[in-house]
């Protein structure tokens, strides 16, 4: 049943050839309970929440503390039980944001493992509406990338035919999704079943790259066990798809193209071609919320790169990145870059970090903390090798867009479809002249999109 798919999206790169993942691949997920957590009001860009608690109040883990205020927001819950120390504005990655600082007062109690974490759950009595309400109230967001609120994806009036569960984890260095698939297989697959029911799709595909054979094996074993348990309904069709290892295999659009052969139309969403894509972490969180009644307050974070002991940690939302790096034994290089997320798309939060200052706090979509030694390259003139063109999964010509942008020729940027850039970073990665193609193409994309919006406003 496991099939290795050959045909995939065009372009793409093979960054670092796999040594990177080996750093943390065999590190089991360790829970970590920090003394204080700093929960940001914006868990993803544009997802603003307002806090419902006041300093001095006592909160329980899982208690609702933030109410969504923007389209991109999902409800916020306390990630530890304890006292609210402060609700104040802090500077996070160069932005001023409201944050709620909680002090942990209770030690974590080890509970007996819930049944959905070690066997097939009976979901026949849970209605679709209950699942959607659960997703909304549980504060679920995409846990792989942009952190789009999950309920916005599932409460669509478009007809959904396929559900893709994204475990590709194509970013180098990160292994949090891999560990999740390996260690939380039952919860994950129960979550996938819930999401399948919630989406109304005919079939769910759990997709991963072929550099994670153990995870595929594990999930396949559990899936076989589940389908023979008699608790799975006839219409619940799940399939494990193993895809070739290629970045950006886990990009939403590329995954749809690779697995289903469909292309999301320009300016559209996956729902336009009948697909919903959710991260494996989101599926597990759905199971936790609907079957275990715990909202999304914790996630697995990979801390890796130039640290003494790389590892995967299960941490409450709001954990400080500095603490996590200290947990790994600290950094091993003074000339460094600290990156929130993967090395291809993650923002650099600190440069030549000394190990003292505060970095950032874990949000629902933080998949990793990466310490890289400073690469130290300089931009050279473009040699027109068209490397960027051949690796662009969106089919763009980044070097031409770059020239057009530097010439401030935005009409040309638009003609070159700069608006379709997915910001994967393949072009910058492959460039032998070290041009910052990805940065400039993204800039061009934002300008072109802004112009398109302005035109649309003028027309109406």
């Amino acid at each position, binding site marked *: 049943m496991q099939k290795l798919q050959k045909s995939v999206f065009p372009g793409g790169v093979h*960054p670092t050839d796999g040594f990177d993942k080996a750093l943390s691949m065999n590190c089991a997920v360790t829970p970590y309970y920090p003394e204080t957590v700093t929960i940001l009001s914006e868990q993803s860009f544009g997802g603003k929440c307002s806090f419902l608690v006041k300093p001095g109040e006592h909160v329980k883990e899982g208690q609702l503390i933030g109410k969504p205020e923007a389209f991109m927001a999902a409800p916020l819950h306390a990630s530890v039980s304890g006292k609210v120390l402060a609700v104040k504005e802090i500077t996070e990655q160069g932005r001023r944001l409201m944050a709620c600082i909680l002090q942990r007062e209770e030690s974590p109690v080890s509970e007996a493992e819930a049944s959905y974490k070690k066997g097939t759950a009976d979901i026949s009595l849970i209605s679709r509406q209950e699942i959607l309400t659960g997703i909304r109230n549980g504060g679920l967001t995409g846990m792989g990338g942009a952190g789009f609120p999950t309920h916005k994806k599932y409460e669509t009036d478009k007809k959904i*035919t396929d559900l893709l569960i994204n475990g590709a984890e194509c970013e180098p260095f990160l292994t949090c999704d891999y560990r999740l698939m390996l260690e939380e297989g039952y919860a994950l697959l129960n979550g996938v079943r819930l999401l399948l029911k919630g989406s109304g799709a005919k079939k769910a595909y759990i997709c991963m790259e072929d550099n994670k054979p153990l995870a595929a094996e594990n999930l396949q074993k559990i899936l076989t066990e589940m389908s023979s348990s008699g608790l799975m309904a006839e219409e619940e069709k799940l399939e494990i798809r193993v895809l070739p290892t290629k970045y950006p295999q886990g990009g939403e659009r590329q995954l749809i193209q690779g697995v289903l052969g469909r292309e999301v139309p*320009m300016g559209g969403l996956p729902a336009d*071609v009948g697909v919903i894509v959710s991260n494996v972490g989101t599926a597990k969180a759905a199971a936790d919320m609907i079957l275990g009644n715990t909202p999304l307050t914790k996630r697995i974070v990979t801390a890796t790169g130039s640290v003494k002991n790389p590892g995967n940690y299960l941490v409450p939302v709001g954990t400080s990145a500095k603490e996590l790096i200290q947990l790994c034994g600290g950094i091993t290089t003074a000339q460094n870059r600290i990156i929130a997320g993967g090395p291809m798309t993650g*923002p650099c939060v600190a440069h030549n970090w000394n190990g003292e200052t505060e970095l950032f706090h874990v949000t629902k979509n933080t998949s990793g903390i990466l310490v890289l030694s400073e*690469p130290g390259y300089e931009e050279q003139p473009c040699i027109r090798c068209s490397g960027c063109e051949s690796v662009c999964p969106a089919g763009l010509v980044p070097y031409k867009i770059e020239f057009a942008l530097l010439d401030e020729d935005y009409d040309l940027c638009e003609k070159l479809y700069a608006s379709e850039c997915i910001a994967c970073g393949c072009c910058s990665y492959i*460039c032998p*002249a*070290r041009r*910052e193609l990805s940065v400039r193409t993204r800039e061009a994309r934002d300008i072109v999109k802004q112009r398109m919006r302005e035109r649309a406003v003028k027309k109406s």
Partner: protein
Amino acid sequence: MNQTKTFSGPHIRTANTTRNIMLHVAISLMPALLGSIYFFGIRSLYITGLSVTVCVLTEYIWQKLAKKPVTAGDFSAVVTGILLAFNMPVTAPLWVIVAADVFSILVVKQMFGGIGCNFANPALMGRLLTMVVWPGTVMQYVAPRTLTASGFDAVSSATVLGAVKNGGEAGYSYLQMLLGETPGALGETSKLLLLVGFAYMCFMGIVNAEAALTYIGTVVLLTFVFGPSGLFTGDILLNLFGGGLILGACYMLTDYAFASRRGRLLYAVTAGVITAAIRIFSFYPEGICFGILTANCLAGALSLLHKKHVYGVKKLKLEEYS
């Protein structure tokens, strides 16, 4: 050049840089250089060394004078220098080589904006200049040292293709052509060693082999079909190994600025058709230089003919899947 230091992703980069790509190209030319020293004597080394020095110096001085960032150390001028020397007969006067070098780097490359912005291959433009301005000095080819009795006196001799063009006999076996024991420009004769270098570039993944092979294929096919004595009478091996086809295809045609765009196969075929047409119809025996230079100039237009699919632009209907 913008020296903006950005800290946004991606934070990891491929190991390939302009410098080491060009270095690999220069390394891949070394076997052929050794071959030319063997066949034409130590003067080929002097000529190549002079050519490289002049190219790098020209680039350096220009960039200094024009107050541009100095990129003379990126080995691209070295490659141009070697290729230009490879296009000269071993007897070429040194001042001709210097003039061609300065023209290539200054006029063809730097005046048009430096690396990547040249409108045609600089080395071939340098050769074209010498062919037009000093034909007497650079179109005089000599027989290899290994074939002459004294071993050191250069004996003026027609190239294989030139001899056949003028109705004569090739005078050399195919094996000699393959190994390079024929009269010709100093780097173009030893096809085997050039192919070794080409294989090295393919192995390092820094060359568009498909463009080179398409070009060779087109030339050989057309010259075979439209042979000198009627259809399908062309001499495949003579056309393949007799002239500078291998050097042109592997190192000139595959110039990054032209051969890596989309539509590169069309580009290679265009160059091939022009080269073959010159070989068949004109009094020039080779046609490589003109074929590639013309295709260089057309490359931009040709790439526009090849539309690339942009993700999501083609509108599809949901009904098609469900």
